[in-house]
């Protein structure tokens, strides 16, 4: 099944799919004001890049891309832990997670 999938679907389809997911993530970061949803949209962008890396790795028959996907997941997990801690602290100080209120961070 798998080999026939790799032969019946050209890699372009995976490229277009991950491009579309990445652009939806970019739009989400621009549209929403809730800081938690913005973090989720960043996760969506990271996942689309992961999908592209895994697709190239599978089509080329080289495992290095999948190792790189694993490390991206590790870094994303650490980023989410620290980012959610920061959001919780900001909520405690301002009683809001609206990013447009966070302009008081300057200087």
């Amino acid at each position, binding site marked *: 099944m*798998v*080999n026939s*999938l*790799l032969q*019946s*679907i*050209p890699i*372009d389809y*995976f*490229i*277009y*799919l991950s*491009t*579309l*997911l*990445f652009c*939806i993530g970019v*739009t989400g970061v*621009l*549209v*929403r*004001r*809730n800081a*938690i*949803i913005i973090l*989720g*949209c960043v*996760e*969506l962008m990271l*996942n689309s890049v*992961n*999908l592209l890396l*895994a*697709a190239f*790795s*599978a089509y*080329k*028959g080289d*495992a290095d891309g*999948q*190792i790189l*996907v*694993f*490390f991206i*997941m590790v*870094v*994303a*997990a*650490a980023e*989410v*832990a*620290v980012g*959610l*801690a*920061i959001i*919780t*602290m900001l909520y*405690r100080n301002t009683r809001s*997670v*609206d990013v447009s209120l966070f302009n008081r961070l300057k200087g």
Partner: protein
Amino acid sequence: MEEILFYIVSACAIISAFFVVFSKSPMYSIISLIVTFFSISGLYIMLNAQFLSAVQIIVYSGAIMVLFLYVLMMLNLKQKDEPLKGSGFQILAVISGGLVFIGFIGALRGFQSIDLPVSPDSQIGLTKNLGYLLFSEYVLPFELAGILFLSALVGAVMIGKRDL
């Protein structure tokens, strides 16, 4: 048959990604994000990357999304906490996102599916092979990832302390 499966799973991923962006309630956004991650895990299985598929479900859909939902429930956001941006700004944001997409597609126009040596060596995505690589060739980045996790843990505790 495989193509139909691919179309179904990718349509599921795209539709739920749209729900992440455009649903009003943050809770529904996060749950749609979980659906997107499960669809991407299905795509990994189609690419014969079983290890990545399992890690995607365990780490993303399990750990990270539970963290998101926990923080979202703990903060107890009201509907009024997210006043929507002005509709003009929203339309501009959607237009610019679409322009990014069009730019990427235009950059891909010259891309012909380069004859990647399609050698569907179906063993590369298995846990055994990836584990062997991870502990032989990539053992130093693996240990550094452990140090990164430790520092992220300490940093999160430090930031979360009430009186810093």
